[in-house]
């Protein structure tokens, strides 16, 4: 790849935007916490003590100190802000309040592989299948197949993932009991055997299906179909048709290649909501990922863990978007050589 000035400028701009996004997001979180009425820390400690557990006063004092620092309530406003940023950037969220004194980040790390696994698999599958189906449906616009899919997509498009998850539960665990209602795995085993893997997939099936169906047939199908219909009437496609380029080649080289670029951008913009949707889908299925951790943390008023999941997922989504932005020049030569 020839590195040009345009590319360097592009990467510099994206990097700046990436850092700026995280900075703004964390700043927003900081001020949200400061604006919240009451003193959350004393509430938390009161709550912990009222639950009947007996703690060493020394430990409670340490906790109080760490909480004041965590919630940015120590020192001047500027100091608070710097402290807050410093701790978030090294992922120090303090101890989990419901699993005292395990650090919140440890709990998060335990759940992370589940979420990343489910999310990346379903996003990749639904993005690819959705775009391919959309391109085909757009290319053969007048076929029956295209019209039926369009009708289904139109109905599914506005439905959020977690409502679909409930529909799936009703259909496949209540009406036709094919899949388990909840959980991530039902065998406890140290070794990874075929049985464990099948069990894992069997549990992941429904959450994955609800993410894929809405993703594929909703977002990516609709947008890629519209893009294809637009591209099909471009002059260069008409010219290629007249020149006698085969239909297959036109679809692959002239249309799909061109619709992929805006779709990569769209994926970057949609990651945030896909992530949110996946979190809630996990909650519905009690799938042991970040969403489930978050649900437990909210119920136990475990602010540290809530804060951890919140800031970590903000950083994660921004990072994923940034990586997509960096991949972009690889697909689009216009960015590369400008």
């Amino acid at each position: 790849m020839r590195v040009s000035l345009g590319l360097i400028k592009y990467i510099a701009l994206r990097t700046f935007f990436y850092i700026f996004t995280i900075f703004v997001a964390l700043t927003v979180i900081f001020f949200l916490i400061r604006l919240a009425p009451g003193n959350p820390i004393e509430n938390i400690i009161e709550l912990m003590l009222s639950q009947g557990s007996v703690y060493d006063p020394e430990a409670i004092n340490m906790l109080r100190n760490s909480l004041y620092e965590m919630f940015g309530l120590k020192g001047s406003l500027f100091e608070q802000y710097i402290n807050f940023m410093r701790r978030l950037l090294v992922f120090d969220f303090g101890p989990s309040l419901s699993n005292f004194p395990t650090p919140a980040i440890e709990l998060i790390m335990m759940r992370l592989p589940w979420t990343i696994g489910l999310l990346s698999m379903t996003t990749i599958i639904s993005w690819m299948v959705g775009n391919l189906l959309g391109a085909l449906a757009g290319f053969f616009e007048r076929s029956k197949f295209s019209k039926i899919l369009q009708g289904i997509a139109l109905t599914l498009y506005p439905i959020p993932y977690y409502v679909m998850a409930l529909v799936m539960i009703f259909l496949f665990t209540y009406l036709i009991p094919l899949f388990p209602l909840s959980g991530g795995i039902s065998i406890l085993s140290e070794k990874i055997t075929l049985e464990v893997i099948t069990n894992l997939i069997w549990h992941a099936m429904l959450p994955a299906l609800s993410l894929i169906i809405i993703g594929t047939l909703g977002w990516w199908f609709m947008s890629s179909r519209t893009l294809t219909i637009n591209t099909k009437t471009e002059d260069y496609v008409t010219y290629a048709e007249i020149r006698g380029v085969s239909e297959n080649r036109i679809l692959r080289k002239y249309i799909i290649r061109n619709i992929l670029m805006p779709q990569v951008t769209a994926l970057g913009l949609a990651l945030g909501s896909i992530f949110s949707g996946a979190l809630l889908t996990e909650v519905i299925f009690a799938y042991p990922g970040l969403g489930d951790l978050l649900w437990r943390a909210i119920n136990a008023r475990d602010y540290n863990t809530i804060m951890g999941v919140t800031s970590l997922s903000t950083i994660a989504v921004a990072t994923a978007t940034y990586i997509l932005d960096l991949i972009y020049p690889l697909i689009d030569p216009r960015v590369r050589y400008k």
Partner: protein
Amino acid sequence: MRKILLLKNIYEIFKSIYLTNIKFRIGFIIFIIILFFGFIVSSFAPVDPTRWYTFPKDLPPSFEHPLGTTTMGRSVFWMLVESIKKSLIIAFTTAMIASHVGLFLGMIAGLKGGVVDKVLMMITDVFIVIPSLPVLILLVSLLKDYLNLYLLGALISIFSWPWPSRQIRGIVLSLRERGFMKTASLSGMPFFRIILLEIMPFVLGWHLINFTNTILYSISSEAGLAILGLSLLSDATLGVMIYWAHMQWYALMRGIWWWVVSPVVTLILIFTSLYLISIGLSEYLNPRLRQRGA
């Protein structure tokens, strides 16, 4: 399209969209029925629908209880109509705030251009990229004790203005290059008059679409938050119904399907009908879409 601003023509325009666009028609009829249940039928509730144990619990749908009763002894039907009302109040609050903030910022960015545009769009992009749900979760969990319908709607609007703002800016940008805009600004027309008379007529239809889409966004956000237990749990909204039925009482596992299915089906009907209204409107405003059948 300029005539859109004139009130006496609004009825005519509505009639022509309604008669020519089947998507809009279907969406509109479904939505009106939902509004009827939410705002008219709900006021005839024989009992306070949120009170516990007014009826025997876990009854399946029957003539007396059209959608059965819940484990907390509430009638699912009366809960449902009350929930529709409350969910829509939250959504209208969000839409009122977010779509107007978006309209305002988008117009300023598009008209002023230059640094103002760059800064505003950068902030807009940041808000699009930030995953809204986690931040909302943090926010609502901190404000849980102070929550009411309007506050919840306002909180959701923090993350729903960027899309309208981007869209309005795009439209204003394309308008700026048109001849009549140049004529207006060269002839010394004041800034606000330009906005009111030259831009508004074009933007208003899209504003209505943004309004509809923001309602959609708000209802789904509220339902999402409610599933996590972060809504008005002692009140009735569609999300809260799902929360009690699915997350707390495991209704499906116990075979009380009517408790879960009713709010889910209602949500799907609301989403689909609003979406149909929104694409019907955009097809009307942009006839090229209509030909493409998109």
